[in-house]
């Protein structure tokens, strides 16, 4: 069974801290190493930069072996190679899924082991 925590916030950087706090709480419940929580937050806020407002939703699903963070909607074509490189280093998996209205959703996968 996977547990899902969702949060929707206005797509402005001032709310990133609230998302980070939720992710820290989730990470603590899952007993993730603090490094891992930190990188999960870093990767998520990196993706939040591409949010295609007015709101952005973050769904965090905890499975037995991994945590998936789904973030969107994102501006179409907003991702660039530089940011992708950052995400690839932080997360174990980075997928982009099409959403409604030509928007994009990012799914970041983090293994529930130690920091990479």
């Amino acid at each position, binding site marked *: 069974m996977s547990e899902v925590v969702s949060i929707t916030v206005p797509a402005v950087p001032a709310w990133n801290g609230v998302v980070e706090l939720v992710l820290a709480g989730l990470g603590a419940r899952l007993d993730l190493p603090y490094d891992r929580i930190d990188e999960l937050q870093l990767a998520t806020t990196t993706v939040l930069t591409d949010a295609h407002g007015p709101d952005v939703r973050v769904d965090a699903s905890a499975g037995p072996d991994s945590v998936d963070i789904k973030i969107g909607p994102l501006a179409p074509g907003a991702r660039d190679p530089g940011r992708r490189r950052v995400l690839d280093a932080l997360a174990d998996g980075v997928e982009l899924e099409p959403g409604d209205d030509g928007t994009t959703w990012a799914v970041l996968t983090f293994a529930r082991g130690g920091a*990479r």
Partner: protein
Amino acid sequence: MGSNDQRALLVAYLNDGDVRARDRLVEELMPLVRSLANRYAGRGEPTEDLVQVGAIGLVKAIDRFELEKGVELSTYAVPTIVGEIRRHFRDRTWAVHVPRRLKELSMRLARTRDELSAELGRSPTVAELAAAVGVDEEEAIDALEASKAYAPRSLDQPYDEDEPGRVPGLADEERGYAALERGSVVRQGLDALDERERRIVVLRFLRGMSQSEIAEEVGISQMHVSRLLRKSLEAMRGRLEEPEVPV
């Protein structure tokens, strides 16, 4: 102005209460204040503010100067000026208001995080950190998150006066930068960073080193690496706003 002239002004102020003499001394020693303030420039506080608090330190030093000690005023004043600048950083460099209790807890957690990492050979969990400092997990999370509001540069690592921003072993990273710059468009973002931040970004994102490995290599705490990474990514985001070739 020679040291005899300075001494005459000190006598005039301290023995006779001549405030104009003190003003002259302040004026004379302001270049010293400026040079000390410049050592701490570029750390998120306006240099002019640092000069102002440094000047307060200078005035305090003049007020407390003891004529019979036989030392130069400039020698005597340096620790007071630097102390005032450091106090300013201590009081002011939290980007948001963080209660003192939380500041103290976050500092304890930062130390504990490094100690436990060394002891366990991995990054500790929030539960382990909370247990080690004797608080509950929510409190630990509060403090850990609050610590991110702290300006990232440590005052314990002042710039090298000869080579500002230079960190040991940097030359070894030249190839790393080159590869990163060749391989992606991060270059523009890297321009926004200072050398130490660039080094940490390269170690993390090019070499794939963990935060704890970087902390060990660079000789700073994990918390510090985390803060620098955040600050760097933030600075880089600012430079990466232009549309890029889609992946």
